């Protein structure tokens, strides 16, 4: 079912206009396939269904790559603004601070927030195993999201606020959890 969904998506996305019914059917088929796999074989079934749909998409990509014509497309121009151009200042200090904020400090903030969630889960009867495992998964997930959000923040003050809020919530929750 998930394989059919990928093929239908491929067809829908190749059309000139946007076909909402076709796209809807493709996405519905995909969700249905995953639900059916989950109902039949649990998480194992969902994983195998995901692998099947990705393999099908790879096969479609292989065909697209094989049949792609040799042409001279307009070269890429979108700038990433990662390094300064010639003559521009390097802003080393600013970059280092961004690194400190997005890597070690964001880890601490994410851990604090994950621990706060653990306190909340425990207080609501989630069970010790569930609460601990959620914390173990949540820390890296929150850190990943924080890295992106912090790097999208336009002002340094916003970044500090984004770090401070989870630290405050986490700290207070841990204190409350210890009491």
């Amino acid at each position, binding site marked *: 079912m998930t394989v059919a969904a990928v093929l239908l*998506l*491929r067809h829908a*996305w*190749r059309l000139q206009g946007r076909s909402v019914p076709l796209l809807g059917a493709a996405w519905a088929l995909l969700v249905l396939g995953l639900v059916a796999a989950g109902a039949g074989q*649990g*998480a*194992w*079934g969902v*994983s195998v269904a*995901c*692998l099947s749909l*990705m393999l099908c*998409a*790879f096969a479609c*990509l292989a065909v*697209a*790559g*094989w049949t*792609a014509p040799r*042409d*001279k*497309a*307009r*070269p*890429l*121009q*979108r*700038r*990433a*603004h*990662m*390094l300064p151009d*010639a003559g521009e200042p390097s802003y080393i200090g600013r970059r280092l601070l961004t690194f400190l904020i997005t890597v070690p400090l964001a880890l601490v903030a994410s*851990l604090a927030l*994950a*621990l706060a969630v653990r306190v909340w889960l425990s207080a609501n009867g989630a*069970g*010790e*195993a*569930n*609460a*601990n*495992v*959620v914390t*173990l*998964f949540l*820390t*890296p*997930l929150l*850190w*990943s*999201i924080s*890295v*992106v959000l912090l*790097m*999208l923040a*336009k002002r340094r003050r916003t970044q500090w606020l984004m770090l401070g809020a989870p630290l405050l919530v986490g700290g207070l929750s*841990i204190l409350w*959890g*210890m009491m």
Partner: protein
Amino acid sequence: MSNGEGVRAKGFDKATVRDALSAHAAIGLLAGAFLYLVCLTGTIVVFFTEWQRIEQPAAPEMRAIAPQSVQRAVETVLASEKGKPLTTHLYVHLPTQDLPRTTITTDHHAVHVASDGSIAMPEENAWSDYLLSLHYTLHLPSTLGMILVGLLGVMIVALAISGVIAHPRIFRDAFRLRARSSGGVGLADWHNRLGVWTLPFTIMIALTGAMIGLAVVTGYGLAGSFYKGDLEAVYAPIFGGEGAADKASAPVPDMATPMRYMQAHHPDVHPSYLILHDPLTAGQHVQVVGLHPNRLIFGEYYMFDAKGGYHGKAGLSDGALGQQAAASAYNLHFGNYGGLPVKIAYALFGLALCAMTATGTSIWLGKRRRRGLDHPRLTRAWDAIVWGSPAALMLTFVLRQWIGNDAPLVAAFWGLLVTILVVSLVVTNGHRFRRGLQILLIVAILAGCVGFALML
């Protein structure tokens, strides 16, 4: 991920899309080389058990082993360690479909066991272990290395999120592949298409990897906040706790009865490991790791005392959802839950991940070159990483075949990689340098194949 022209934000404003591309590039460049190394080793290590079999083809193989043979082997191994400090654990790997071998590992050594329970030969899989260690810790001290690799997992998830934000048409263009277009368009299309279609795999691999890598940090956070610093207490509700230690001496425990119990009471569960805790002490006890078919969990722990009395299971197969999720993280990450077909799929997607990491930096370098900001040294250094690291890995495999299990693999790998990087800074012809590395990789692969054929 990097995209072509005509980006029109839908859902995100233009500034956010531009900033997301900036963030995507920054993360990719900051972590690029290590990310590539972890993705590359992860792709190869999917076949960990197969590499072990390739490394030591003469080790005895069997479909099953009798409980009394295991008992005999354990007694022999423990007797051989008399005079040494007592091993804290003794592991018996039982024959599985992936690795049909019986192997006993203690703190001091590891040996293969023949089907009659006699000790056949020492286990020699230094290359497989070195490869796994490179993937797990980049050969750094274990805690530091795992945290660093966990951080790389976090960066992959961040790259996936920022990549999707930076490319508003990424799903609409999911099958648009201008593979042979010039001006960096072909490279960007490969990067983006592989990226979008491996998105579930990438996020799952990276998140489970980050969870495993950062478990030390999170574990200490949990222990410090809720368990008075006791790290074991954090994991006890998940995987079951260790029994109370009693260091008084005791005879060799009964390892055969738990196996017989499993055959009689759980015929559909395949035991993959027997773990003996605190051997030859009064506190010793046995755990059987049982494989459950069509499940993501690495197994269920069945607990037995030293006389073979059954004491229940940990609950990884049917306990709290958190227990099942934690026990599934390892198999989900390493792809060993569906035999060879799943492993091949994982290797294919792993290669795609390597290609995305490699093309990401190349796209950025290409864009700068087209704007007149050429970085020939950086380009050659990146080629050194992309082509030099697989070549160095394969050369260490050849070294393992020539010198044997004691070959200095870690030193050889890093020595080769640093040498290739230094050469990349000295040479002037980037095209010839890259071609030379590609030829070196092919030669190393062929030499590895010839070496394996000679070992058979």
